[in-house]
């Protein structure tokens, strides 16, 4: 009881609905990637002229080779499940201010033709039904609803033969 009384004597202030909006530039390659998923539901990666690795997320420098990349490579909308989780704890998404709906499947995905990986949602919430190596396909947001963000991909779906 004494502790509770003591706790109450310490004041705190809250930031409340404070908002500090940012406006980030995607750059030319990021813009190309996001515009293509928005307008054409197509994925593009970028290829290192030295090691030949194809990167998604798209970027202009291959870190290990430290070379500038300019060659865009079109990728499929299917890929492979690398690893996954099912998120069940609730938290507020700081990008939207809204509770992220749980549970949701969360996965590392390798798009066909890419050497690096993406993280995204997967439409399965039973971990027993997922296994590394399974095939997945991107499910895009409906026409007219895509805005040029990674959320233009609704989620990836397990391809169930």
């Amino acid at each position: 009881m004494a502790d509770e009384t003591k706790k109450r004597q310490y004041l705190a202030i809250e930031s409340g609905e404070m908002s500090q909006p940012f406006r980030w530039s995607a750059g030319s390659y990021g813009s190309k990637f996001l515009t293509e998923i928005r307008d054409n539901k197509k994925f593009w990666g970028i290829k290192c002229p030295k090691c030949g690795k194809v990167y998604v997320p798209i970027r202009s420098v291959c870190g290990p080779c430290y070379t500038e990349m300019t060659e865009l490579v079109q990728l499929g909308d299917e890929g492979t499940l690398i690893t996954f989780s099912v998120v069940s704890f609730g938290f507020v998404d700081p990008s939207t201010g809204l509770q992220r709906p749980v549970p949701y499947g969360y996965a590392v995905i390798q798009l066909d033709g890419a050497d690096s990986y993406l993280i995204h949602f997967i439409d399965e919430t039973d971990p027993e039904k997922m296994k590394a190596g399974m095939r997945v396909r991107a499910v895009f947001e409906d026409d007219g609803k895509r805005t040029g963000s990674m959320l233009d991909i609704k989620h990836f779906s397990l391809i169930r033969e």
Partner: protein
Amino acid sequence: MAAKRVGIVGVGMTRQSSARRDVYGIELINEAVRAALDDAQMTRKDIDAIVIGNMDHFEGINYVDTWSVDGSGALGKPIMKMTTGGTTGTTVAMGAYYHVASGMFDRVLAIGWEKNSESDTTGAIITAFDPFWDRPTFGGAVAGLALEATQYMAETGATEEDAAYVAVRDRKNALNNPYAHLRMELNIEAIMSTPYLAWPVKLGDMCPRTDGACAVVFASESIANDFPSPPAWVRGLADRHLWAYTSDPYVNQRVKGGTWFPAMERATAELYEKVGITDPLEQFDVAELYLPYSFAGLRYMEALGFCERAGAPALVRSGATDMGGKCPVNPSGGVLSSNAIGATGLLRVAEAALQVQGRAGDRQVPGAALALATGFGGCYWSDELVIGKEKPEKVRG
């Protein structure tokens, strides 16, 4: 100016708890600094420079170096802020080390602190990541680590119970540490019965959110023996920050036999070469490792070379890493018992120093002479330091 060997001569830490509402951030910092200065029998005037760090978006105060000068004692002195995410605490230790090793400063104070209670930890961690490629779907540390845990189990056959053993060990060790946040004796069944946060990671597998601070005094070899306690020498250090985006660490999958943690493998290779470590389990007397969740206590042991790939479950279950074992891991209770993020890495260094100085109280590993301390963060970053009782023969980066 010749390079100098560097010893740790003073350590201060605050009580760690879920919410230190009794102190403002500056006061929390001051509590740790006063304890470190008292420990070294120094005053603020004796300090030549200060390195401070935290994750500033956790408190929303972005000029911590300036804001904290009254509490840190940096008023009118050179100060640098270093912030590298989870590794912040080990990075401030390295920064203080570099200051002294350069020969430009003799007495440098490293400070790491956090008040995790002041914001939502998952939200704050998400905003540390890329706004285009990571944030829209990222679920913070818990979800990110769960991806690694799933992969580790699939590739090695390790089980959730194997991971729970690590949580049981570290939390039990915390019973010996009066500064620790969670101090509880749990068994594997108790850990296994906690709810999933992000499969396969359960509440009992995760570190807590903690308020706390730590301060450590680094001194050059010219004066390191002029303090009440014998110096704990920094025998070597190494760090690697490899990846940009949260999915990048998984690119390493094709490295044959690799642990998927190349940053830790590469830092370890450099460090062990510098310090002359060929068999860490035999050579280290104690390790204070940044294990933010239980599965890390398996996979990171492999990346640190304590056992072969997939050998960690058998290693930890053998008792070799328990108190009384060949190389006790986290006598302090580790990160699974206290995680005031900016302080966490520095606490590993501080605990390693106390061990080799023989000043670790109830958590002392008898006769400890060589200790490993690590920091972990973000996209699988890795900081590592070796702290020893013996002075190194020369300065080794």
